[in-house]
């Protein structure tokens, strides 16, 4: 293989890292039983925060850290409200999505109109590889945490049946707060990579919007499984990053290519529900269900 082709293939690194981290963050949070419809709004905020923070600190890493922290705060808020109050997860998620869309513009647009510069991660093959390795290491850690540790068992228990989990000894609120914090930290990190490494261009309003939903689809099409998500994220990132190459190869319309992640997610959802994969990859039973005992303390 010639170096050019390798560069093209590895060039997907930043895109992969952005989608993959966001997708596993989403999967981790939903495993705890909270329907996560705020993802796209918070992703958009993450992009705006990453842009502003990196610019002011003069370092891309600062952008990532800031996006991570801000997203984490959103995660805690959503987890708290959806667990403590008898409110619809869909309602709170979509509401916060709207807030996120709006806040992103308020945070970044005024600054963009005064400063015309971008601080981003360096772009070369070495960095691309580093992004791939870094995100896969995180993915393996998340998988280990979810499948092997007591915390992971508690998160899954809270997502499967919070009432039973509570009687087994799980503090559902605490576990969901942890899941919200960790999940959204990854979403924030993914958003920062999306902007600072994958598409580092002067900020324009609405940057990142819709990308959260792509990650949402990537996560669903892999049944929220962190290791399987590597595959689906890689495929979708290649599709998006190298969409023009693919068009040439397969003669597919660019619009159909872009549709593929969503179609795949839909097909995967059907497959997970009608085949034996259901046991492993079906959505958590209590996903989106209001967790409320007749009387409780806040």
């Amino acid at each position, binding site marked *: 293989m010639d170096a050019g082709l390798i560069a093209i293939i590895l060039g997907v690194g930043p895109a992969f890292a952005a989608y993959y981290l966001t997708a596993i963050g989403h999967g981790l949070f939903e495993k705890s039983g909270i*329907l996560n*419809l705020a993802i796209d*709004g918070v992703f958009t905020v993450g992009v705006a925060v990453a842009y502003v923070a990196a610019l002011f600190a003069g370092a891309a890493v600062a952008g990532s850290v800031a996006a991570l922290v801000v997203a984490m705060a959103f995660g805690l808020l959503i987890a708290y*409200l959806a667990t*403590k*109050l*008898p*409110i*619809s997860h*869909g*309602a*709170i998620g*979509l*509401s*916060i*999505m*709207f*807030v*996120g*869309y*709006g*806040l*992103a*513009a*308020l*945070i970044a*647009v*005024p*600054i*963009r*109109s*005064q400063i015309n510069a971008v601080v981003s991660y360096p772009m070369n093959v070495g960095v691309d590889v580093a992004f791939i390795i870094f995100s896969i290491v995180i993915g393996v850690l998340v998988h280990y945490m979810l499948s092997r540790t007591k915390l992971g068992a508690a998160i899954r228990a809270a997502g499967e049946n919070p009432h039973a989990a509570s009687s087994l000894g799980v503090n559902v609120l605490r576990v969901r707060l942890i899941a919200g914090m960790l999940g959204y930290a990854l979403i924030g990190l993914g958003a920062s990579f999306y902007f600072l490494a994958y598409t580092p261009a002067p900020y324009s*309003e*609405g940057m990142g*919007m*819709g990308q959260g*939903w792509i990650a*949402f*689809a990537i996560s*669903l099409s892999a049944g929220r499984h962190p290791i399987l998500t590597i595959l689906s994220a890689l495929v979708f990132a290649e599709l998006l990053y190298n969409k023009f190459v693919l068009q040439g190869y397969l003669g597919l*319309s660019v*619009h*159909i290519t*872009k*549709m593929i992640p*969503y*179609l795949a997610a*839909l097909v995967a*959802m*059907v497959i997970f*529900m*009608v085949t034996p994969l259901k046991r492993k990859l079906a*959505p958590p039973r209590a996903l*989106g269900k209001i967790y*409320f005992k*007749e*009387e*409780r*303390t*806040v």
Partner: protein
Amino acid sequence: MKMRLIVTKRVKPLKFGGIIIPFLSIVVGIFLATIALYGLARVPPLLVYGAIGQSLISPQMLQTFVMLTILGVALIIPFNAAVWNIGAEGQIIWGMIMSAFIGLTVAVRYIIVSPSDLPKYTNMPGMFVLPTPTVSGAYAVEALTMNPGAAICLMLIVAGIAGAVWALIAGLMRAYLDIDEVATTLIMNYIAYYAYNYIVYGPLQGITISTSGFGLSNALHPALRFSRISTATTATWEGVALMIAIFVIAWFVLRQTTFGLRLRILGSNPQVLRAAGINVRKYIVLALTISGAIAGLVGTILFAGNLYQLIKIKTITTPPTHNIGYTAILVSWLSMLDIRGVPIAAYIVASLFQAGINLQSSLGGVSGGSAMISSGALTYVLIGFVLTTFTVLRVFAEYSIKVVREGR
């Protein structure tokens, strides 16, 4: 001493909760939005209040109001049954595509004329000359193939069917495979967006040099366009008539038929329906299908009433619907799922929509770059905060929260 908050379900719902809570949410939500606007972008609060006040009496918001009322009705039908249709966007898009298909291919035929013959057609009744020439240099003229009234009816019927079918897919998946409709309807919006783009670059792309390959369809024949109420608004007589008809029919169905009654019971207690011998799956599918059909009609209103042309979606976040399918979710929630509340909620949300536009235009003189913020983003801030506040405050309609002091 330790304080605890205790949340308990009210035996009786809060008195006037259906009015107090939405009203309070709007006030608190707007207040929070002004804080965010001032804190992050130095937008003076007075400008915000001014823009909102102005929008409440603005005729420009009428078209938004019409569409939001129809969509609000479309959404509370499944919402009453606890079936969450987040897919109005996709259903509207398919309504638009199919309206365009009827309006641009079935209801008209194209006569290709050389530039020298053009004057003959320009003033001929029933003929519509497309403004730019075709690739070959000739001009294209749209000639009606059917009665315009019949064509408009056909557009509406086909758009309704298209929206219904799109929603039906999610309905079947929910009813028979138990796949969450929130995720499927949402994902299907994006599939619809890309299908729309594929179609405006493909089957329905225009034949003139300014449209073909530019992601634009031909323009709709003027005889097939809805008629504007006045020049001050984009609202149309047909749109208003549809709104009234849909509202009345939906009210009748929800309140006066066993179908509507059972839908409402499905939302709170599906087991009762099962024990009564009612096929719950059928109701889930029907709720989504009807909802999709009505949303599909909005596609026609948008296409034949406002846009007259399919225009490509440049970025996925700026569809020709202006995300009204999502905004309508806010309308149906604010109505507390009571159909009588839908027009009121639609009025408030349409005002907030308009307020974003008004605010944007009054930001020109403000320093600090906030003038660059789009009206869409300003609308998101307003709507987002109102919606979030409402979602949280809504709890109080059915639950009471008490503070308990505990001695330790």
